C-alpha cells in the first residue's frame, strides 16, 4: 500500500518535472520572439569581445599546421557562386580584369589590379578554418597581407572598420559584405588570399580574392572581394550590422 502510494507520488513528481521543462521551453521560445529579450542576450557579445581582446595579445598568431594536416576536401559554404553576368564574364577571362578598390576614410584611395596584388610580397599559411556550424577544415592560403595594402592608402584616424564589399548576391538580391576592426587588418595573418593549396582560388572558395581573418569564424572570411571601404560606422551599409550574416543575427565579433 505504502509502496504503491510512493510510486504514485514519484510518478506525479516525474510528470511535474517534465511538464515544468516543457513550460520552460515554451517560455524560452516566447522570449526569443519578444522584442526586448534578444537585445539582452546580445550584450554577451560586447563582453566576449572586451575579454577576448584583453587576454589576447594583438599579434598572437593562429596555429599554423603542416602540409600533412591539410584537409583532403575543403568544404565551400555560403554562396558558392556569385551568379551574376559580370562575374561569369570575369571568370571566363580568368579574372584578368579584376581589381580591388580601397577607399572611404583613407588619405589616398586606390584601385589595385589582381595582377598587381600578386606582384606584392606574399604570405603563405596553413591554418584552420572554423565554421560557425561547428566543423573545421585546414587549408594552405597564399595572399597579400592586408596591412601592406592599407599602408599604401593610409587610413584616416577616424577609420574604425574595414568593410569588404563582395561580388556575390544572394537569392533575394542582397549583396554580401563583411567587416572587421581596422586594428585587426594589420595582423600578420590577415591576408587577401588568391591561392588555396597552391592553386588559384576556384569559384566556390571565393575566386579570385578572399579575406583570411584567421582569428575569427568562417563567416567573416569574405569571398569575391572587390572593394575595401574604410568607415567609422556601419550606418547605411547593408542592414547596418557590419555584415551579411550579422544582419541575420550572427555576432559581429566572431571570436568564438
Amino acid at each position, binding site marked *: 500500500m*505504502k509502496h504503491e502510494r*510512493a510510486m504514485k*507520488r*514519484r510518478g506525479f*513528481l*516525474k510528470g511535474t*518535472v517534465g511538464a515544468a*521543462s*516543457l513550460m*520552460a*521551453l515554451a517560455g*524560452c*521560445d516566447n522570449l*526569443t520572439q519578444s522584442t526586448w529579450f*534578444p537585445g*539582452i*542576450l*546580445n*550584450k*554577451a*557579445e560586447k*563582453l*566576449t569581445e572586451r575579454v*577576448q581582446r584583453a*587576454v*589576447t*595579445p594583438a599579434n*598572437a*598568431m*593562429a*596555429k599554423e*599546421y603542416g602540409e600533412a*594536416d591539410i*584537409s*583532403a*576536401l575543403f*568544404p565551400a559554404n555560403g554562396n558558392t557562386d556569385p551568379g551574376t553576368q559580370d562575374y561569369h564574364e570575369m571568370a571566363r577571362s580568368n579574372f584578368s580584369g579584376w581589381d580591388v578598390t580601397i577607399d572611404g576614410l583613407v588619405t589616398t584611395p586606390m584601385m589595385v589590379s589582381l595582377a598587381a596584388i600578386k606582384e606584392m610580397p606574399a604570405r603563405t599559411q596553413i591554418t*584552420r578554418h*572554423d*565554421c*560557425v*556550424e*561547428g*566543423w*573545421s*577544415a*585546414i587549408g594552405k592560403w597564399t595572399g597579400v597581407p592586408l596591412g601592406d595594402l592599407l599602408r599604401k592608402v593610409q587610413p584616416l584616424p577616424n577609420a574604425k572598420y574595414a568593410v569588404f564589399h563582395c561580388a556575390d548576391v544572394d537569392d533575394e538580391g542582397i549583396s554580401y559584405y563583411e567587416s572587421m576592426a581596422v586594428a585587426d587588418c594589420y595582423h600578420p595573418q590577415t591576408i587577401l588570399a588568391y591561392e588555396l593549396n597552391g592553386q588559384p582560388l576556384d569559384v566556390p572558395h571565393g575566386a579570385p580574392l578572399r579575406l583570411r581573418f*584567421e*582569428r*575569427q*569564424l568562417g563567416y567573416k572570411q569574405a569571398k569575391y572581394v572587390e572593394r575595401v571601404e574604410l568607415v567609422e560606422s556601419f550606418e547605411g551599409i547593408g542592414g547596418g550590422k557590419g555584415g551579411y*550574416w550579422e544582419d*541575420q*543575427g*550572427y*555576432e559581429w565579433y566572431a*571570436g*568564438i
Partner: protein
Amino acid sequence: MADLIESPVTIFESQGRSEPPYLPSAPVAPDRQPAPPLKVERIYRHRLPVRIGHWLNVVCLFILIMSGLQIFNAHPALYWGDRSDRDQPVLSIRPMRADSGEMKGVTTILGHKFDTTGVLGYSNGSGRAFPAWATIPSARWLAMGRQWHLFFAWVFVINGLLFAMYGLYSRHFKQDLLPTGRDLKHIPQAVKDHLVLRHPKGEEAKRYNVLQKLAYVGILFVVAPLIVLTGLTMSPTIDTAFPWLLTIFGGRQAARTIHFIACFSFVGFIIIHVSQVMLTGFFNNIRSMVTGWFVVKHEGVSHEA
C-alpha cells in the same frame, strides 16, 4: 560540519513556539505519556550563496544544454583531432532515406549505425539531429541558439567562479564536499545501499554520503572546468592566446567532442541527482535548497520513501 548549523528541535520543545507547519503535529500533552524516541531535527543545510549558485546553475544548465543541442544540429557530427574529415566522424546523427523511401533517423557511433527515428536524426516529419523539444529555440535557428548559449555561458562561468571563491573561503568544499578517508572506506557499503535504494537516516542524513560527495566533486572540479575549457578551445581567438588548449585536448574538433561528452555527463548527473532528490523526500530537499532548512528524522519515526 561548520556549514550545518545544528538546531535540534524536538517535537516536545516545539510546544508554544511558532514552528513552520511542516513539522508533524506533536502529541498534545507532553506529560501524559512516556516520551517515545521521536525526534525531528531541523538543520540549516544550505547557506544562501550555495542556494543562489544552485538555482542559477539550474537555469544555466537547462538553457546551455538545449541551446548547445541547437548549435550541434547545425553540423550534427563529431570528430577527433583538429579538422573535420567528413568521412570519419566519431559520431553523426543524420536523416536518411531508407530503401522503402521512408525517412529514417540514423545515429552512427564509431561506425556502428543505430536507427533512432522519431528522436534523433528524424523527428516529427523533419530531418534534424536533436528533436524540437530538446533545443532552444525549438525551431532550427543557429544564430539565436548561439545568442542563448554564449550569454548563459557567461552567467554559468561567473556564477561558477563566485561559487569557487565562496567554497574555498567558507571551507564549504573542504568540510562538506571533500571525501574523508573514512568516507572512502565506506564506498562498497554506499554502493550497496544505493543499489537497494536504502538512504541514510538520522545523523547520517545530515551530511553528504560518499557517493554524493564524489558526484559533486566530479561535477564541480572535473566536468564543469572541462566543459568551459573545451568551449573556449573552440574559439579561434582564444586558441591564438592559449595555444596549449589545442594541445591538451587534442585539437579543436576533439575539444568539441569532449564538450559534447561533458554535456552528456551533466545530463547523466542531472537525471541521477533529480531522481535522488525525489527518492529521499522531494519537498524536504527542495525546501532545503530554497530556504536552507532541512528536516532530519531520527530513529523511531516512520520514514516513508
